[in-house]
């Protein structure tokens, strides 16, 4: 119990004697460049996010168009509207040829 209390106190006191961390002396040049020609990582992150989303949506649309074209050309799709749906989804109701 005493060992635990000592360990906790020592850990809490581990910040004693802490010195201030010093930054890059060339910071002003970087800040100046960033302020005049903004190219922040945050914008890059947002850009990547939007581009990824746009790519996914384009891919989905392309797949939809391709599948529509494929089914349109297939021999099963003889009619249009109700007939096409019936052909595609209610095929099991067709009379069975013996």
């Amino acid at each position, binding site marked *: 119990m005493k060992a*635990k209390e000592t360990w906790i106190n020592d850990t809490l006191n581990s910040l004693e004697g802490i010195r201030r961390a010093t930054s890059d002396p060339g*910071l*002003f040049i970087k800040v*100046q460049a960033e302020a005049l020609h903004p190219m922040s990582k945050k914008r890059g992150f947002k850009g*990547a996010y939007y581009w990824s989303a746009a790519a996914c949506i384009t891919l989905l649309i392309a797949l939809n168009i391709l599948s529509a074209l494929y089914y349109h050309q297939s021999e099963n799709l003889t009619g249009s509207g109700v007939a096409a749906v019936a052909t595609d989804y209610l095929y099991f109701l067709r009379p069975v040829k013996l």
Partner: protein
Amino acid sequence: MGITPAITRLRDGDEQAFRELVDEYRDRVYNTAIGFLQHQENAEDVTQEVFVEVFRSVARFRGDCSLSTWIYRLAVQKSLEYIRTSRRVKRSGILFTLFGKEDHLNIAADAPFYHPGILLENKERAAILFRAISLLPVTQRTAFILHKVEGLSHHEIAKIMSTSVSSVESLIVRANRKLRELLSDYYEKNER
């Protein structure tokens, strides 16, 4: 507080005034950021973002607090924002791994501990303490870091956090109590 001559010079786009401001505050901002992030490159990014923000919004600075308070406030906001963004990116990690976007993932608990101001003999324990600090509620964490890492008085912290001195004192007491609990749990699991 009001608009001081230094702020007027900054508003006029005086480059020398901005250089002086960066030189005067860069270590304080960096030290605050490293208190939150414990990661050299991330803290440098935050420091840079703070000064870019100062450069862009000094024209809107109304002077209702001191320049120092305003800059510290920005440093705290940007550090917390950085942590939030990193956690959000981490949650969507799979998507970003697919698109090769992993540079924000290394933060606090996952990254190796870095604070150049800590005495060598205290490094190991300080790493555990900082991991516990990162689990504190935001207000307790902010008050604790500004007091223990940046060495600010309760009065200065109250101004930065827009609260009363007694609230800051209470936050620090509660932070210490919570840290004791967290360290106690850690000790039971790892040190016994």
